[in-house]
Structures are given as structure tokens and as C-alpha cells.
């Protein structure tokens, strides 16, 4: 048993739902108890979908267990087929139905429906959401892509033809990444055959084999299927994920090599604004900013690389909750001279963030809250995400526009460079002393307005003590050291104070003097 408060991923059948909901003409019958329909609201609320996911649940209850849940399952499959008339169906069990051991595949087969019915084995007590999505997509491709055959290049074709694999429902910025990548491929003169699962029908999966190669946007969902297509139809697939300018250029070069076309139309094109923005002098202060990156493996790797090479940050922490891609994340972490954090326990992530003391956290919704608690700037770069990260505006992560979006996303939480500089230079000035809040908040010290008693109780939360009380008393500060501390810009003063106190504590110094302050600064200076 594992004590869990926050889960980065849902159970594997949620992954299957992400694939089914992304497609059309496909219906999923899920053997599941009453209550499991909660998953619908992830799609209708977080992603704001305008239709119910194409999922029928058997919603069995205790009284059904004494009877025949297998019969209930068969009835549900037959009714779903009759009502929705899908081109194909997937059937499977959620965690509870896995325990009662009805055989969804066998039961559905006994109905002898005139469409392909694909059984899913999703071990709910071992695997999680992303694995479930990957496995479902792989099973669908295996069942529907047709018999393996060597691919003979179609000489009559004017333009190379590719599939784009990986985007799903509930994917972080999948909608806009797809638009961006389609645009890149179009500029290169490459036509898109099938995009899957997002927007594809089961019949479309039967046309996958017509393409010359596959673009894998999200290895978490699409790598298994791409490997299958490579083995069965000899289609190569792309390994580079176009997150950031460098990766986008490498992606374009990789595609050019695969197809033998000229990458110049893209590589010599307008590209991204990121390189100039990053070189402009206002960005100098970004140099060496300590950044902690955590998320799914694809985004964590791509964005850590980009943060280091394209923004000049120092990556002080890198990790993922997706164990399937731990090896890749470890390799990337080694590039940054650090050890990867592979965990799905947010408390481990919080501890690692505390230990790394970053100036910027890039992570999921959860890291956003951890960072908020620790008072560190933060941006969201990976699922799981809440409703605000399914924006109405165009907001890709991939390609050149994605790099523009990422530049803004990563820089905005930090204090504006000029502002930081002015605060440091004129810290004793009446207009820039520490009592003055940042100018973008109006320049007046922020004080919470007196809150009128709300008519309805808002969810107040009892304060929870996370840390044990510190019992060691710190050495007192000598007055001149205290005065010197006040000269340090307020946004780093807290850090300077705690570092100095820690330094003094470790050396059991009786008093913190001016010397101690600067000894500590030298000791911790990066």
C-alpha cells in the first residue's frame, strides 16, 4: 500500500479514455462500478469538451455482484453498439472490474458484432494513465493498421507523406502543438496523411501504412505504436521532440534526412523570436538562474535542455513522474551534471525543490502549488494541469511559436531584469526601499484589504505544520552585521539571512558578525 494524496497520473483506463475521446467513430465500453463516471468531467470541464466522452460504463453495484455482472457487461456492449453505431469498439475493465474477473474481451467477442472489438488489458494495480494511453493506442494500431507489408515508395507522389502520432484528449497543449507542427511540415512540403489519435477514426488508422514516415510528438503515448509501424511497414519515425529552437531545428533536419528534402525553407525562414530576445541585454540577468524542472519525461527533458542552452539558466533539478522514461531523463540530468529525480510522490519533489533552492520552478500543477508555498516563481510546463492550462488563445509549446510561448512563460514569473537592477542599485532610495512593492503591483506596499465577513463560508483551510519546530537557537546578530544585511536587496535577503544563520549554526559561532556574513556569502556563493 502506498499513502497517496496527490497523484500525477490517473489509472490506466483514464489513458484509454484519453485515446477514445481524442478519436471519433470509436466507442469504449468500460466494465466499472457506479462512480467511475467521474472521469467524464475531466474532459467536459478541464478540457471544456462540448460532448460526452464516447464511453459507456456498466456502473455495476453491490446487488449486481450477486447476479451476473458478465451479462450486464454484454448487455452494455450490445446497447452501446446499437445506439452509437461506431466503426470499432474497445472494451476493458477498470480496477474493480479487474478484481471480479469477468473477461471483457471474451464476452464482447461472444456478441459477434460486425465491427472490430479490441480488448484492452490495463493492469490497474501496476500501471498508470500514460501507459494506459500508450497501450490503448498501440492495440488500436495493431488491430486496425492492416497486415504487415513491406512498404514500396509511391513514385507518383509529389510530396512526402507522414503521420503525426501522439496527440490525445486532455493532453497539455496538444491542440496547438499540432497546428504548429502541421505548419512546419507544410513549409517543408510534406503532406500529412493521418493524425492520430486526435481527430482520427478507426478507418483512418487503416490508412496509417500509406505514409512514408511517422512524426512522434509525444513518446509517452505514441512510441509503442510507432515502433510497431516501423516493424510492420518499415516506416521510420522521428526521435527529436521539437521543444525549443534548437530541438525544432534538429527536428526539421531529422525530417529532411528521413525524406531527402531540403530543410532550407524552414531553417532559413523567420524562425523564432527567442534567439534575439534571449540575446538582448535585458535577458543578461537570466544567466545562471537556478531552475528546477519536473514533469512528464518529454517536457522535462526538452524544456530543461532549452532552459540551459537557450535561456542560459542553470538546471539544478530535473525529474519525472513517468517511470517508463526514467532512463532518458537520467541521461539528460547527467548532461546537466545532476542526478535525476524519478518519483511519483509529490512530497519527494517538494523535498528536492527545498534542497535545490531554485529561483524558478518549472513543473506541473502540483509544483505550482509547492512553489507558491515556498515563495518561488513558477511556470507550468507539463500535465497534470488544471483548466487554466487549456487556454482559449493559441499557446503551443512546440515549434518556433512554441519557443516564443516558452520564452514568455519561463521569463514572466521572474522579476523584470531592469526592475531587479534598479532595486539593487537604489535600495536606500525612498522610492525603492523594501517597503515598496514591485511596480507592476502599483508601487505601493501590498496590504490585504480588510475582508468583510463573507456571506457564505469560503473553504478556509486549517493550517498544517509541515516541518518540525526548530529547537536549535540561532546565534544573535551583531548590530553592524544586521545593518549590512539590510543593504542586501530584499528579495535575496531572506536567503542571505538563512544561509548565514545555517553557516553560523554549523560552526557553532556565538555571534554573527560582519565577518560571518561575508564568510557565509563566500561559502555559499555560486
Amino acid at each position: 500500500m502506498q499513502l497517496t494524496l496527490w497523484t500525477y497520473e490517473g489509472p490506466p483506463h483514464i489513458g484509454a479514455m484519453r485515446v477514445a475521446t481524442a478519436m471519433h467513430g470509436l466507442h469504449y465500453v468500460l466494465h466499472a462500478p457506479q462512480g467511475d463516471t467521474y472521469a467524464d468531467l475531466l474532459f467536459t470541464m478541464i478540457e471544456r469538451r462540448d460532448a460526452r466522452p464516447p464511453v459507456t460504463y456498466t456502473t455495476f453495484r453491490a446487488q449486481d455482484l450477486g447476479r451476473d455482472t458478465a451479462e450486464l457487461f454484454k448487455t452494455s456492449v450490445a446497447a452501446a453498439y446499437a445506439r452509437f453505431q461506431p466503426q470499432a469498439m474497445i472494451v476493458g475493465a477498470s480496477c474493480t472490474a479487474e478484481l471480479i474477473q469477468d473477461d471483457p474481451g471474451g464476452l464482447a467477442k461472444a456478441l459477434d458484432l460486425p465491427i472490430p472489438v479490441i480488448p484492452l488489458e490495463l493492469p490497474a494495480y501496476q500501471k498508470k494513465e500514460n501507459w494506459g494511453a500508450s497501450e490503448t493506442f498501440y492495440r488500436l494500431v495493431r488491430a486496425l493498421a492492416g497486415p504487415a507489408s513491406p512498404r514500396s515508395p509511391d513514385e507518383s507522389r509529389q510530396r512526402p507523406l507522414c503521420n503525426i502520432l501522439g496527440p490525445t484528449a486532455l493532453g497539455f497543449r496538444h491542440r496547438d502543438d499540432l497546428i504548429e507542427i502541421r505548419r512546419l511540415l507544410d513549409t517543408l512540403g510534406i503532406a500529412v496523411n493521418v493524425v492520430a489519435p486526435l481527430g482520427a477514426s478507426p478507418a483512418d488508422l487503416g490508412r496509417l501504412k500509406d505514409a512514408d514516415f511517422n512524426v512522434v510528438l509525444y513518446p509517452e503515448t505514441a512510441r509503442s505504436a510507432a515502433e510497431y509501424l516501423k516493424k510492420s511497414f518499415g516506416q521510420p519515425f522521428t526521435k527529436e521532440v521539437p521543444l525549443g529552437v534548437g530541438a525544432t531545428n534538429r527536428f526539421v533536419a531529422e525530417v529532411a534526412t528521413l525524406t531527402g528534402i531540403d530543410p532550407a525553407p524552414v531553417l532559413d525562414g523567420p524562425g523564432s523570436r527567442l534567439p534575439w530576445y534571449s540575446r538582448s541585454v535585458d535577458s543578461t540577468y537570466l544567466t545562471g538562474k537556478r531552475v528546477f524542472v519536473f514533469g512528464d519525461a518529454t517536457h522535462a527533458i526538452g524544456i530543461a535542455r532549452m532552459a540551459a542552452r537557450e535561456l542560459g539558466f542553470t538546471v539544478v533539478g530535473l525529474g519525472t513522474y513517468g517511470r517508463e522514461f526514467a532512463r532518458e531523463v537520467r541521461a539528460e540530468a547527467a548532461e546537466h551534471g545532476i542526478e535525476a529525480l524519478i518519483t511519483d510522490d509529490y512530497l519527494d519533489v517538494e523535498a528536492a525543490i527545498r534542497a535545490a533552492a531554485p529561483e524558478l520552478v518549472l513543473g506541473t500543477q502540483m509544483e505550482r502549488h509547492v512553489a507558491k508555498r515556498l515563495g518561488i516563481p513558477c511556470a507550468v510546463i507539463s500535465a497534470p494541469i488544471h483548466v487554466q492550462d487549456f487556454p482559449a488563445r493559441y499557446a503551443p509549446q512546440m515549434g518556433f511559436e512554441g519557443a516564443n510561448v516558452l520564452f514568455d512563460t519561463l521569463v514572466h514569473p521572474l522579476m523584470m531584469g531592469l526592475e531587479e537592477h534598479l532595486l539593487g542599485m537604489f535600495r536606500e532610495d525612498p522610492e525603492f526601499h523594501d517597503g515598496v512593492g514591485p511596480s507592476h503591483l502599483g508601487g505601493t506596499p501590498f496590504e490585504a484589504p480588510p475582508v468583510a465577513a463573507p456571506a457564505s463560508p469560503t473553504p478556509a483551510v486549517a493550517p498544517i505544520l509541515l516541518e518540525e519546530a526548530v529547537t536549535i537557537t540561532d546565534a544573535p546578530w551583531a548590530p553592524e552585521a544586521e545593518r549590512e544585511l539590510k543593504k542586501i536587496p530584499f528579495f535575496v535577503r531572506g536567503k542571505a539571512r538563512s544561509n548565514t544563520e545555517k553557516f553560523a549554526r554549523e560552526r557553532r559561532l556565538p555571534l554573527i558578525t560582519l565577518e560571518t556574513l561575508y564568510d557565509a556569502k563566500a561559502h555559499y556563493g555560486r
Partner: protein
Amino acid sequence: MAACGGIDLHQEHGQRAVFCGLTGIVWLHRKIQDAFFLVVGSRTCAHLIQSAAGVMIFAEPRFATAIIDERDLAGIADANEELDRVVTRLIERRPDIKLLFLVGSCPSEVIKLDLSRAAQRLSGRLAPVRVLNYSGSGIETTFTQGEDACLAALVPELPRAPAEEAPSLLIVGALADVVEDQFLRILSAMGIADVRFLPARRAGAMPAVGRNTRYLLAQPFLADTARALDERGARRLAAPFPLGAEGTTGWLRAAAEAFGIDDATFAAATAAGRARAETALAPHRDKLGGKRVFFFPDSQLEVPLARFLARELGVALVEVGTPYLHRAHLAAEIEMLPAGTRVTEGQSLDDQMDRCRAERPDLTICGLGLANPLEAEGLSTKWSIELLFTPVQGYEQAGDLAELFARPLRRRALLEV
């Protein structure tokens, strides 16, 4: 089809789009401030609570899931030892916890993990922390029934009121603190001094119960809790539920009658509240009057809400879906529903959606999995969960309650795009 009072009652079987009882944790943990709710279940259970609790999950709330893994299922790990280990760690981490609920789920029920024995065992080991158990599994409970199961588990633990004690009034069902305080003031003005609440705000302050306890249900979904209270000798006061001015008056009147309060005192204690509720309701009557409303099943609050909408706001009821209809507890409500109202107990989701589409009601009350899809089909919706999280009972909230239904219609009229 069956007659039940004057209503047109249907029962339906099929796919149900409802929450399981685990969801009750989301509001119960806030009500009992030193209790912790530990679900023993699967990743699905953890994911459900995370999805239902939304942003609250980040506030270190007092609930969590002990996720059963394959080692527990294969018998490699002794599930009981594992549970003891997890609970011990939890209590070490949260020394402020006085009451721990082990909450059963579908997986734990199906593998027949005996949580009641585990609760006994752990109660002994972790004293003075009290450990109780109940099931919030989807196979046994629907949404608000999770609160019923939780409160029913508390009842045998309640202190015994002395036999010679003067009659006391127990209000059963989690209410917002502000609503509790309003009811306390009104009841006190009537002269009913000894008023207790189940659940109490703290584990150590749970109300005593005995033969002289009279109880009023504040919520319509408390069948098992009521049965457990009856077994302790307490007596239920039949009443409508305190939704809307009329429901609140009927509910308070049941208490007044049981405690022999005269009409003048009752009228004096309730007059101001009734007048304010009337003022607050009047503007909504113009907007909601004559509108056709359709309820999908969700919380068992549907019948009292429909009664309020029909009688106090002039709404026309198309269909009132409820996951379960407790005939006895809802007798007064059923009596007040307009004759011929179609009430559907249970659900066959797709069939019900077909009926809703065919009727094209002005307002559909439904869960969040259905709301946006129905909006996209041009139907106005009010998502039902809000009715559980928002204080809606009593005179002072009657206007707020009407506003919850009026807002979607007002918004639709407002938008030009």
C-alpha cells in the same frame, strides 16, 4: 410506474452517471475539523477525490488514499500489516488528528478487506486516536450516501444521554457553520435551548444521544444514520427539509410542535426570517416563474429542491430524477410536490438524455460530466454539485438558493456571442 402520494413515480435501471460515496469526504473533512479520512482503495479512488476536490487538494487537506497495489492483491504483502504501517505513519505525521475514518472503496469491498476489524485493532493501538470505518464505495453508495455511511458509523460512538435528561433536539446532517448558527438562534428564540448537531465540529464534542433525543434530519439522504439513531432510542421528527422559506418553516415547526412551543412564540421567532426570505425570493420569481426544469439524479436533494422551485418560484417540473427515493423521510416533500410530477428513481443515462433533449427544458440540473455537452446542444444547465458545497438551507439562504438556479438563465440572456 407507480403511485406514491400524487406523483408519477418511475423506476429506471441502466448506466448511472453519479459520484460514489467517497466524494462526501470533500465536505465532511471540512466539517469535522480534527478528523482524517483515509480511503483504502485504488489509484482510481485517489484520482476521483483529486478531481472532485479540485484546488482544495493542495491545501494539505485531511484526506488521503492508501493505494492497494499488486503486492497486496497477490498476498505477498499482508494487507492488514500494510494498512497498520500506513496508518501509523500517517498519525505520526499528523499528530493533530483525533478521529480517523478508514473509508472502504469498491476494490477494498470486493477483496473483502475487513476494515471494521482493522478499525478496532488500530483504535486499541493508536488510543486516544479513535479509528472508525465506513464504506464510500460506488457499488454500495451514491454521492451523498457517503455522508450517511460516515454519520451512521459515528452514531454507536456517541455518548449516552442520561435517561432522566430533559428532551434535547439533535440536528442531523452536515451544514455550513453559518447555517448551524442561524438555526441555533431561531431555535433559542423559540425557547429550545438544548440543540446539538451531528456531526459536531470536533471529534471530542460529538453530541450525546438517548431516549429523550428528538432529531430533525437536515438532509434527505440520511437513511442509515436515522436507523442507527432510532436504535439508540432517539425519535425522528417528520418534517420537510429546510430548503426555501416554506421548507424551513415546516422544518422548524416540526421542532416547535415536538417541544410544545406555542404558535405566537413560533411566529415571533420566525417572522423576521420569513419576511427576509420573501424579500430575497421575490425578484427571482419573475425570472424563474413558468420556466421548465429537468433534474438528473445526483444527491437525493432533487425532490426538496423541486418542491422549492415549484411552490416558491413557480417553476414547472418536467422530470425530477433522484438516485434513491426514501419514501418515509420524504413523505412531507412528496405531499407538497405538484400532483402528477414525474419522479424517476434510478437512471438509464442515455434514455434520460433522450427524454431531456426531446423536452428541451429551460433549465437542466445535472452533473459536471453532462453540463457542458448539454450546453453545447443549446440547453441551459445548472451543475448540481454546487448545491452541496454552498450553504443553501434556512431563511437567509433562500435567496441564494434561488439565485443558483436563476444565474444560468440570466447569463444566457446576457451573452451576445
